[in-house]
C-alpha cells in the first residue's frame, strides 16, 4: 500500500517535469526567429513504477505509478531533408555563379543596341560603303578611319571587360578557399564541443544547429560529403578529400596555374589539385575557365572574340594591302612591285634620269625613322640597303628594266619550286615590254645558278601567284623610272594593327594602322592603281562582314558574331532557368524542413497552456495531499479531547 508521502513526490515530479517542459517552450519561443534553430522537445516519460504486493485485489503484486520525468531534450530534425537541401543548394550556387557571369558578358557585348559590337562593326562597313560611293572625299575617309577606331576600341574594351570579370572570378575562388578553411576550423571546434556535450547526458542541440547552419553555408559554396560518428562528431569531405575529421582540419590553398595564369585549388596535405564538381566554387571555376576561357587554349567567349578579331584583322589587311590609296599630289606612275606578300612597307623609288636609282623602303610596322635610303648606279648591286629588299640595277640600265632583290625577312610558304624556306633570298628581275604589254619576271635564287632561275611572262597590271609559292606580285607598267620624279607606292599597308608580339592577342591589341594617324590617302579604297574614282576597294572591304571565310568555318563575320551572341543568350537562359528551378525546389525542401524543425508560435502557445494547466494540476494534487496530511496529523484522533 502506497503512503500519502509517496503522492507528494509523485506530484512534485509532475511540477518539476512541467516546469522543465515550460522551460523548453520558452527556449523555442525565444529562438523562433533564429536561423537554423530546430524546435526542441522534452518528451515526458512516466517514472519507473513501484511494485506493491498488497495493491492488487488479486493475489500477487500490484504496480503503482510514481510520477513523471522529462526525458532528454531532443531537437526535431530530419537529416534526410538536410541532405536534400544541401544537394540542392550546391547546384543553385553553381548555376547562379555561371548565370551572373554570363549576364555580365551579355552587358559587355551590349546586344541588341546602338553601341553593341555588331552595330559598331556595321557602322564601319557602312562608312566603307559611303567611301566606295565617293572614294576621293577626305571626309568619307575620315569617317571610315574614325569608325574603324571606334570598332577597334569597342573590341578592345570588350576583351578587357571580360578579362576583368575573369580576374574577379579568380579573386572569388581564392576568397572561397579561405572561407572553406575558416568554416572547417569552426566545424572542428564545434565537433569537439558537441562530443564533449554528448559524453555527458546533455545533448548539444544548439551546437548541432549551429554546425548545421555552417554545413548549409558550406554546401552552397562547394559540394560536400558528410559522415557522422556515434558521438555526434562529423567528418566533411570535398571531392573525397577530408577537410574536417572530428576535431582536426586539413586546409586548402591556392596555387597559380602556369598555363592559365589563374589559381587552382590545392589540397594541402597531398599538394594535389582539387576540382570541385558542385557548388558556387565549381560554378566560378567553370565560368572562369570554360565559359570565359582563354585565347591561348582556344576556349570560351574570349577565344570566340579573338577568332573573330584576328581573322577580321587578317582578312581586312590582306585585302587592303592589295588595294590602292590616293596618289599624293604631284607623284607619278611607277614601275615596281606593288605588293609583295609577307614583306609590307612603302617603297619610294626615285631615279635621276641618268640611270641612278634611289630607293627608300619604309616598313609597315616600323616608323619613318627606320626607313633606309640607298643609291645604286646602273650595274651596281645593293643588298645591304634594306634587310628585306635589295635593289640590283641591270648592267645596261635604260630605265625600262628594274631588278628587285628580296633577301632576308621574307617568310614564304613551302612547296612549288622551294622545298623548304623560311627566309628566302633571291632576285626578281622584272622586264616590262611596254610595246607588247607584257612583263617577264625572273627569279634567281641567291645560292642557285642562273639555270635555277624561273621566268614567267604575264600581262601588265595582272597579278601572278604561280611564279613562286607564297608570293603574289602585281605590276603596273604604265610609266617608267626615267622621268626623275619621286614615286611612291602606298599599297602594302595594313588596315588594322594589333598583333605586335608573339604573345599578342588580337582582341586586346587591335587598333587601326599607325599610318592613318598621319595620312588619309593611304587608305586603299581603289582596286586599281591610279584610279582615285574607283571605290571598289572600299566596297570589297565593306563586304568583309558578309563574305564567308573558311577560317570561320565557312561563315561570315556577321554570322560568326551572331552565333556567339545566340549561344551566349541560350547559355545564360539555361543557367538562369536552372537557377530559378533550383530556387523553387530549395523553397519546397525548406518548407518541409521548416514543418519539421520550425517553431510555430501558436503551437508553442498551445503547449504553454497545456504545461501550465498540468503544472496547476500537479500543484493542486500537492495541495490536496497536503490537506489530507493536515487532516490526519491535526484532526485525526482528537474526538473526546
Amino acid at each position, binding site marked *: 500500500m502506497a503512503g500519502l508521502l509517496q503522492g507528494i513526490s509523485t506530484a512534485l515530479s509532475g511540477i518539476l517535469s512541467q516546469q522543465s517542459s515550460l522551460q523548453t517552450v520558452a527556449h523555442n519561443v525565444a529562438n523562433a526567429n533564429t536561423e537554423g534553430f530546430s524546435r526542441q522537445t522534452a518528451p515526458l516519460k512516466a517514472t519507473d513504477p513501484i511494485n506493491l504486493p498488497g495493491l492488487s485485489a488479486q493475489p500477487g503484486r500490484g504496480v503503482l505509478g510514481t510520477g513523471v520525468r522529462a526525458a532528454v531534450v531532443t531537437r526535431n530534425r530530419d537529416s534526410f531533408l538536410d541532405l536534400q537541401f544541401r544537394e540542392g543548394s550546391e547546384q543553385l550556387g553553381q548555376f547562379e555563379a555561371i548565370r551572373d557571369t*554570363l549576364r555580365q558578358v551579355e552587358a559587355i557585348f551590349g*546586344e541588341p543596341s546602338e553601341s553593341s559590337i555588331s552595330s559598331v562593326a556595321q557602322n564601319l562597313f557602312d562608312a566603307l560603303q559611303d567611301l566606295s560611293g565617293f572614294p*576621293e*572625299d577626305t571626309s568619307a575617309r575620315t569617317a571610315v578611319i574614325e569608325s574603324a577606331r571606334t570598332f577597334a576600341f569597342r573590341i578592345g574594351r570588350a576583351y578587357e571587360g571580360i578579362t576583368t570579370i575573369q580576374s574577379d572570378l579568380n579573386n572569388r575562388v581564392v576568397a572561397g578557399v579561405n572561407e572553406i578553411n575558416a568554416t572547417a576550423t569552426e566545424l572542428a571546434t564545434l565537433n569537439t564541443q558537441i562530443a564533449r556535450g554528448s559524453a555527458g547526458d546533455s545533448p548539444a542541440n544548439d551546437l548541432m544547429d549551429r554546425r548545421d547552419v555552417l554545413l548549409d553555408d558550406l554546401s552552397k559554396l562547394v559540394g560536400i560529403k558528410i559522415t557522422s560518428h556515434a558521438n555526434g562528431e562529423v567528418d566533411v569531405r570535398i571531392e573525397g578529400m577530408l577537410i574536417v575529421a572530428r576535431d582536426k582540419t586539413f586546409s586548402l590553398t591556392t596555387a597559380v596555374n602556369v598555363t592559365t595564369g589563374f589559381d587552382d585549388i590545392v589540397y594541402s596535405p597531398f599538394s594535389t589539385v582539387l576540382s570541385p564538381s558542385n557548388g558556387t566554387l565549381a560554378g566560378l571555376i567553370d565560368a572562369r575557365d570554360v565559359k570565359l576561357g582563354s585565347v591561348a587554349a582556344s576556349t570560351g567567349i574570349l577565344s570566340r572574340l579573338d577568332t573573330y578579331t584576328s581573322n577580321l584583322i587578317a582578312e581586312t589587311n590582306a585585302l587592303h594591302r592589295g588595294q590602292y590609296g590616293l596618289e599624293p599630289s604631284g607623284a607619278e606612275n611607277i614601275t615596281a612591285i606593288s605588293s609583295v606578300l609577307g614583306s609590307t612597307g612603302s617603297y619610294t623609288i626615285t631615279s635621276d634620269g641618268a640611270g641612278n636609282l634611289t630607293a627608300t623602303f619604309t616598313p609597315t610596322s616600323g616608323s619613318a625613322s627606320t626607313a633606309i635610303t640607298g643609291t645604286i648606279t646602273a650595274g651596281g648591286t645593293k643588298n645591304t640597303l634594306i634587310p628585306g629588299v635589295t635593289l640590283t640595277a641591270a648592267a645596261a640600265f635604260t630605265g625600262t628594266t628594274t631588278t628587285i632583290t628580296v633577301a632576308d625577312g621574307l617568310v614564304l610558304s613551302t612547296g612549288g619550286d622551294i622545298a623548304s624556306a623560311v627566309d628566302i633570298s633571291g632576285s626578281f628581275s622584272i622586264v616590262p615590254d611596254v610595246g607588247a604589254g607584257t612583263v617577264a619576271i625572273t627569279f634567281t635564287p641567291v645560292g642557285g645558278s642562273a639555270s635555277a632561275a624561273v621566268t614567267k611572262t604575264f600581262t601588265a597590271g595582272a597579278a601572278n601567284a604561280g611564279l613562286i609559292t607564297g608570293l603574289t606580285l602585281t605590276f603596273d607598267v604604265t610609266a617608267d623610272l626615267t622621268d626623275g620624279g619621286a614615286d611612291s607606292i602606298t599599297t602594302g599597308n595594313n588596315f588594322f594593327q594589333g598583333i605586335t608580339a608573339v604573345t599578342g592577342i588580337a582582341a586586346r591589341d587591335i587598333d587601326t594602322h599607325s599610318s592613318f594617324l598621319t595620312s588619309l590617302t593611304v587608305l586603299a579604297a581603289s582596286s586599281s592603281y591610279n584610279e582615285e574614282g574607283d571605290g*571598289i576597294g572600299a566596297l570589297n572591304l565593306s563586304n568583309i562582314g558578309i563574305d564567308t571565310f573558311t577560317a570561320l568555318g565557312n561563315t561570315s563575320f556577321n554570322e560568326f558574331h551572331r552565333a556567339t551572341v*545566340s549561344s551566349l543568350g541560350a547559355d545564360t537562359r539555361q543557367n538562369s532557368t536552372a537557377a530559378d528551378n533550383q530556387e523553387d525546389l530549395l523553397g519546397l525542401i525548406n518548407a*518541409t524542413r521548416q514543418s519539421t524543425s520550425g*517553431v*510555430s508560435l501558436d503551437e508553442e502557445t498551445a503547449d504553454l497552456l497545456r504545461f501550465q494547466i498540468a503544472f496547476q494540476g500537479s500543484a493542486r494534487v500537492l495541495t490536496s495531499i497536503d490537506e489530507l496530511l493536515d487532516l490526519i496529523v491535526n484532526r485525526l484522533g482528537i474526538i473526546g479531547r
Partner: protein
Amino acid sequence: MANKVTLQLLNANFINGLRRNSRTLSELQKQLVSGRVVNTPEDDPNAIGTILLIDSEIKRIEQHERNTALGRDFMNISEAGLGQLTADLQRARELTVRVANGTLGTDDRLAVREELFQLFDDAITVGNQQFAGRYLFSGTRTKVKPFALNALAVTYSGNTKSILAELDTGHTIAINIAGDDGAGTGVFQTAFKAFKTVLDAIDGGNISAISSAALTDFDSALDAVGLSRTLLGARAKRMLINEDRLQQVSISAKRFRSELQDLDIAEGITKLTTAETTFRAALAVGARVLQPSLLDFLR
C-alpha cells in the same frame, strides 16, 4: 504538404512571392519602357540571331538607298552636261550647214568660225565639269582634269573605266560616262573630232570637207551623245526601280524585326495590370495571414 506551418515559413513564402512578383513587374517595366520584348540575348536566344541579322540587313538596305541616291545625283549632273553638249552640237551643226553653202562672205565666215570655236570651248568645259570635286567624264581618274585643248586637238587624261555603285549586295551599276572609250566612239571624243574637222576645214578653206566630212562627224557625234543619254536614262530608270524595291524590302524587314523584337503595347499593359493585381493580392494576403496569432485570442 507540410503538416505544420510556422510563422517563419509563412514569412518566407510571403517574401518569396513578393520577390517573384517584383521581378515580373520589373521585367514588364523594362519591356514597356524600351518598347521591346527582347532586351538582352537571354530574353530570347532563338530570336536574337535573327534580330541582329535583320538589323544589319536594314542598315545595308539604307546604305544601298544612299548609294542609289548618290549615283542618281551623279547621273543627273552627267545627263545635264550631255544635254548641254547636245545643244552645242546641234547649234554647231546648223552653223556647219550654213558654212557648207559656200555663200557666206569672209567676215560672216569668220563670225561663224568664232561661234563654232566658242561652242567647241563650251563642249570642253562641259567635258571638264565637276560634281563635288570629282570630274564627271574622266573615267575613274576623277581627280584629273580630263580634257585639254591643244591647237584644236583635245588630249584626254582620264581613263575608260566605269565608276561602280553598289545597288544591292553583289550588284553594281556604272554611274559615269567616260569621255573616251578607247575605241574612238566615246561621246566627247566624237564631238571634239567633229569640231576639229569643221574648224580645220574652215581654216583650210576646204568647203567640200565641211559639207561632207564635218556634217557626217556631227551626225555621228549627235548619235553618240544620244546613245549615251539613252544609256544614262535606262540606268537612271533601273536605279529608280531599285530605290522603290529597296524601300519595300526595307519596310518588310522592319516589320519583321518589329514582330520579333517589339512589344505589343496592349499585351504588355494587360500583363502589367495582371502582374500588379497579383502583387497587390500578395501584399493583402500577407498582411492578413501574418498578423493573427493565438496570443491575440488568449484572455
